[in-house]
């Protein structure tokens, strides 16, 4: 997947996790927590969805990497570079 495709995947997951939030103007360099109604259980939802869709295991010490869209895409890029988008 390209970074653009990864961003689409994360956006799709966020749409499921935060269905009441408007994601059209999400700022990639701002923490999710500062612009969406999200808590720690929601972050675990992101981890679980990535595990279910792409079978990637994200260790707990890497969770801070999922703070914003920018950092998430950067973190996932090497993990998903050989994986097709589903």
């Amino acid at each position, binding site marked *: 997947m390209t970074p653009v495709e990864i961003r689409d995947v994360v956006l799709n997951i966020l749409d499921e996790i935060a*269905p009441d939030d408007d994601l059209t103007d999400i700022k990639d360099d701002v923490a999710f927590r500062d612009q969406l109604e999200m808590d720690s*259980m929601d972050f*675990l939802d992101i981890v679980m969805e990535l595990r279910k869709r792409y079978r990637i*295991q994200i260790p707990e010490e890497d969770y801070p990497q999922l703070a914003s869209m920018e950092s998430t895409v950067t973190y996932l890029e090497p993990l998903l570079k050989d994986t097709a988008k589903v």
Partner: protein
Amino acid sequence: MGPPDTGLRDTGLRYTARPLEAAKDDQLIANVSPEQRSPEQRIVITGVGMTAPNANDLPAFREALLAGRSGVQSYEIRYFGKTVAGVCSFDHHRYQKRRDVKRGTRAGSVGVYCGHEAVQDSGVDWENTDRSRVGIYVGVTEHGNVETENEIHEIKAYDYDTSFWSHHHNPRTVANNPAGEIALNLGITGPHYTIGAACAAGNAGIIQGAQMLLLGDCDLAIAGGVSESIHTFGIFASFKSQGALAEHDDPTQASRPFDKDRNGIVVAEGGCLYTLERFADAAHRRAKVYGELVGYAINTDATDFVLPNAERQAECVELAIKRAGLAADQIDIVSTHATGTTSGDVQECAALRKVFQDNSNTLFNNTKSYIGHSMGAAGALEMAGNLMAFEDGICHPTINLESVDPACELAGLVANEPREKKDVSYILNNSFGMLGINSAVIIKKV
């Protein structure tokens, strides 16, 4: 060989076993006769929030019951397949965000809906209410089965690898979940918990709320029961294996308590929560009062896991009547528990005949014939179905009663057509459950 070493210091005190000695009846709060209760010892209903398979508020529920309209429909659930059930259609986004509906449980959503509706109906100034003085007491027959079945179904797709098991499982399945979701949604910081009481849970929730008001634990109790049971295949499969699941070509005729052709229970979901207050508080704010809880009782068969015991049921009803300071023939309407099973209906009728002895005043009806058995909500919902009789002077009938089983004969059984009943003053609501739990609640017109 001497006694085992408990590690405890021997105090030298020795106790001789003696029978329990009951306190004098008039020293117990539960036994203070109604006329001697102070305004602070009188508990009244000031608001009703509900969803049933045939209505989503009290006036609509009453209208459906007087019109004989069933809410039972065809239903299908994974693994089990086709059956019939009572399914609710309340707007679960009226008081919850989509995120909260997704994160929580069906029982939680039912509770949030009913809780909001009850508070609104009570007319209490909610914005200025001290939420730390509000208590939530929600009866449940079971909780967690739906969510556990869902998770097992989900991880089947991952070859039962538990690393795919949801982190939402525990907050969804803790036994206090439905009450906790109400607290979260309404910002209530007083006590919240559920009362597990099988199918007597709706009454048990009401009783618990009343007791907490009497103890001064809260000033407003949100109390009653909820059920999400139609979303667990296990309850259908278990009743089927027990030979106690209703079947009928026409779903609206499947729930038929007391009828010769009854063949079991129709499982339903639903909820009914009341706002309960001490009469002194309700009068102070000039609240509308639906009725006063003047008597209640809970007892136990201690004879069987599932089979009811008419003698214990009769004792329970008699105790509630005694605590209300009444004679049996002063009860105007008995809202029966009967679920449509072969033996359960017969046992309840035997108990009722013993207590009410064919008196000419008391009428009997059954609300499950319209909505099925809404489990944890049943006691509270069935009481709600009858509450308006104080106003309209009508006893709604038991429907689908084409041919009464002789073993279920009751002199005042109201069948298929509503019956006028002038000056309804007392309604008694029965609710019984597995493991032999029996409950009865008596509401008085105020």
